[in-house]
């Protein structure tokens, strides 16, 4: 910090507008590169993961402590006590226990729900905890505390309880970003379980508040699909494994083209209160692999 050095430093300082110009070019370049390819994400996510993720994990715990406090204001005391007992219980359990428990819960649930239990059982799943959510208010993606070191890969399906949450879109060494199916830019190929008609499930920001997601492009000329029907992931999706529960139809409307139908789905997962998720470590088979 000698005055001579400082003067020298000031001499070489780049004026703001040139720096702005250079960084704008850099950003534009990065946008173009990451929009078209994927090769930059690995080194950058490694750097981000090593610094930010451990901190996020810690603060997340503080965050859930605070959120419990804020719920206290709204909820009845008895309900809260029960809630806290359950939370304390959850904290005591290790990751392994959570996974096993949810597996068992899922198994019994699904045995009652449909005959898909055999299919679900075959998938190997690992549990993970949500440690951070989208920094803005536009999308519903979140970060979990497992990454490529735990065997996760891009496009692996993420579930919670008995329903589909989304899929992994970005992986770092110890973290992964999950895009949920209610995200505004998410489109999932689904299927009505009872009639095997295909449809497209689309997330929509305008429906977040109502707790529903929309579907469209349902071709049902025989009017066999009714409200309350189960929607599962379809066989023809190239990202999602078949037969995972998405939700239940709540309304159906005929489109103005008189050919297809659209409407709303109540998702099987409570996206507001997600804390732990399960990742299926099996990828959907596609033509090139």
């Amino acid at each position: 910090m000698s005055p001579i050095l400082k003067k020298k430093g000031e001499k070489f300082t780049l004026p703001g507008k040139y720096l702005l110009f250079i960084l704008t070019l850099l950003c534009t370049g990065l946008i173009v590169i990451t929009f078209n390819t994927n090769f930059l994400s690995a080194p950058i996510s490694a750097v981000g993961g090593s610094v930010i993720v451990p901190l996020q994990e810690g603060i997340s715990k503080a965050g859930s402590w605070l959120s419990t406090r804020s719920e206290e204001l709204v909820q009845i005391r008895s309900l809260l006590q029960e809630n806290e007992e359950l939370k304390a219980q959850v904290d005591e359990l290790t990751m392994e226990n959570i996974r096993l428990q949810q597996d068992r819960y899922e198994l019994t649930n699904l045995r009652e729900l449909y005959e898909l239990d055999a299919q679900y059982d075959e998938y190997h799943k690992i549990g993970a905890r949500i440690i951070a959510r989208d920094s803005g208010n536009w999308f519903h993606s979140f970060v979990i505390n497992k990454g490529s070191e735990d065997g996760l890969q891009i496009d692996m399906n993420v579930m919670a309880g008995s329903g589909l949450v989304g899929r992994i879109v970005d992986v770092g060494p110890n973290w992964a970003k999950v895009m949920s199916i209610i995200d505004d830019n998410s489109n999932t190929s689904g299927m009505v379980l009872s009639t095997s008609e295909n449809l497209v499930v689309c997330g929509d920001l305008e429906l977040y508040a109502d707790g529903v997601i929309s579907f469209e492009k349902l071709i049902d000329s025989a009017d066999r699909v009714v409200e309350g029907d189960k929607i599962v992931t379809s066989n023809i999706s190239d990202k999602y494994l078949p037969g995972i529960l998405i939700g239940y139809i709540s309304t159906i409307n005929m489109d103005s083209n008189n050919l297809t139908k659209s409407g709303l789905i109540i998702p099987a997962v409570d996206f507001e209160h997600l804390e732990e998720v399960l990742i299926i470590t099996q990828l959907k088979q596609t033509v090139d692999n």
Partner: protein
Amino acid sequence: MKRFIVSVLLIIICFLLQTTVFKGIAPGGIVPNLMIVLTASFGFMRGERTGLIIGFFCGFLADIFFGNVLGLNAMIYMYIGYANGKFNRIFFPEDIKLPLALILVSDLVYGFSYYVTLFLLRGRFHIRYYFLHVILPEVVYTILITLLLYPLVLWINKKLEESEERSARKFV
């Protein structure tokens, strides 16, 4: 050097708070935008250069974890920081009206540019809905948080400037 470390710490703390604690207690599912507060206040407190650098790193951090493409948030934040730097000349630490107005406008600009780039271009035209349900609540919460966060940032900046002056005097 001290300034560099403090800035990095501030950015990381704001990012962590925004993605964890505030998401946990978010009323109505909307979080305040702490990083806009940081970017804008460094912009008008320290000038356009600092504003754009702080903005770039805030945005880049958001991009690494939550961006669909790398660099979009970085660019928006950077321009906001730079534009706020233009007001450095009429900024006085005692006056809180100008910072509040600047942060409010910055958050509005951020909301609109994000809407245009990621929603309008995909054919989502209900701007009224997005404005009333996302942009406006975020601006309101951000302004409320600003009333707490801004004095802190101001105080940190004052301390840093004092210590820089002291060390500069020492070597004269």
